[in-house]
């Protein structure tokens, strides 16, 4: 087994300077690890800090203390201490984040959005286009939408574009926040399959899934983060 994520003594407190310096402790003393091929599902009530923890793993939120080593290019790197361009390189090559929402960039077509991660990792334009099309088809996104920018798509369509982009070339580590929130049953099943395939190919998965059926199918292990709540 290869350890892909090693979290040690992580704590997070938000300080709101413009609201009287209010301090919002989220958790402390977080310790866990994730191996390649595992799907760790974060559990805990709404507001327990599941999304915050996922964002910390991605290097998006900065923990107040602690270290998070991710295995990048065969070596453990502390994403908390890494300089910006190292974090960006880790994200480009190792660490993917699948959010609930697609950040729409004006004028960029659906196909280009999905092709982009493949091109960034050095695939030829032909291969990238072929794989992007196959993924969009698999997620049942009508072909007439492929050359349009997704700004005007429905929530479910945008979410499928986002999922296609994330799974067209699964990262070694995938952080997944509620990917099925606005999908119908058929597409939810496709997402469950995609996650299983990524895991079989060796990806380490950390995810949040409110849908219990999806959660049961995806999880190989649960982590209840309520245990890390600050007293």
């Amino acid at each position, binding site marked *: 087994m290869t350890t892909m994520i090693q979290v040690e003594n992580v704590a997070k407190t938000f300080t709101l300077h413009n609201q009287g310096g209010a301090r919002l402790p989220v958790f402390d003393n977080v310790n866990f690890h994730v191996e390649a091929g595992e799907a760790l599902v974060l559990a805990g009530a709404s507001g327990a800090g599941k999304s915050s923890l996922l964002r910390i793993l991605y290097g998006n*939120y900065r923990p107040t203390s602690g270290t998070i080593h991710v295995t990048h290019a065969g070596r*453990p790197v502390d994403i908390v201490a890494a300089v910006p361009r190292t974090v960006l390189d880790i994200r480009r090559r190792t660490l993917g984040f699948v959010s609930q929402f697609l950040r729409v960039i004006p004028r960029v077509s659906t196909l280009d959005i999905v092709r982009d991660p493949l091109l960034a990792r050095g695939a030829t334009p032909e291969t990238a286009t072929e794989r992007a099309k196959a993924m969009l088809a698999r997620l049942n996104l009508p072909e007439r939408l492929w050359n349009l920018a997704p700004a005007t798509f429905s929530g479910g369509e945008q979410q499928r574009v986002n999922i296609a982009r994330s799974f067209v070339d699964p990262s070694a580590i995938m952080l997944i926040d509620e990917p099925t929130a606005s999908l119908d049953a058929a597409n939810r099943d496709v997402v469950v399959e995609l996650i299983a395939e990524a895991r079989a190919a060796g990806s380490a998965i950390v995810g949040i899934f409110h849908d219990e059926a999806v959660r049961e199918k995806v999880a190989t292990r649960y982590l209840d983060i309520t245990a890390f709540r600050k007293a």
Partner: protein
Amino acid sequence: MTLHVAPAALDLEPAPLLSVANVSRFYGERIGCADVSFDLWPGEVLGIVGESGSGKSTLLRCLAGIDKPDAGEVLFRGGSEPLDIYSVSEQERRRLMRTAWGIVHQNPRDGLRMDVTAGGNVGERLMDRGDRHYGEIRERALDWLQRVEIAGSRIDDRPRQFSGGMQQRLQIARVLVSEPRLVFMDEPTGGLDVSVQARLLDLLRVLVRDLGLAAIIVTHDLAVARLLTDRLMVMKDGKVVEQGLTDQVLDDPHHAYTQLLTSAVLSV
């Protein structure tokens, strides 16, 4: 896990393109910018954000060699030898600004020659660089006009006949045609309509990525910073109060002033 490797071991490039150390500029008693230090690596896009009067434009003018700071050093590693941009001769600095650097001004009138044709504006940078073949210069100018989405049929028109958005795109073509390593941009989308901004932003995003440019972009618009930059520096009263990866600074701001800035916008 026992083998912990420092992030520096993963450096992708041997040296920063630009090293800025303790740059300060004063206007009498008043601070323009104070004690600014950072490294910029090839291909990296740095945003400088802050309100008007925060010192971000003063800093940009110093970094770009337009103004000389009262203290500090800027080393540029674009050629074989690192170049201290304030100690080289005026002539050398001008040559650098015309070839290895590009400056995109907020007002296109400051960066364009309004009485010269669009093709001439783009071609001039190539001639500065030493190109002499008229046919090739015109061909490259035409290619660049099209890359910034200006119809080739407008090549002999003068910039004053262009809309504000077109003038800005022409200025960008003029700057990028000489293939600079480093580009400075001061509020590149300021003064443009929102729809025109979106087009320009998308164009800049694609060009910066495809050309592997390093860039320093001053903006007060956090959405622009989010879309175009890798890293952010937040300035207040001439000082850098917070810096880091762009999404970290915008999504989890630590300094009181950054929290104020990010909470003051509707959605970024």
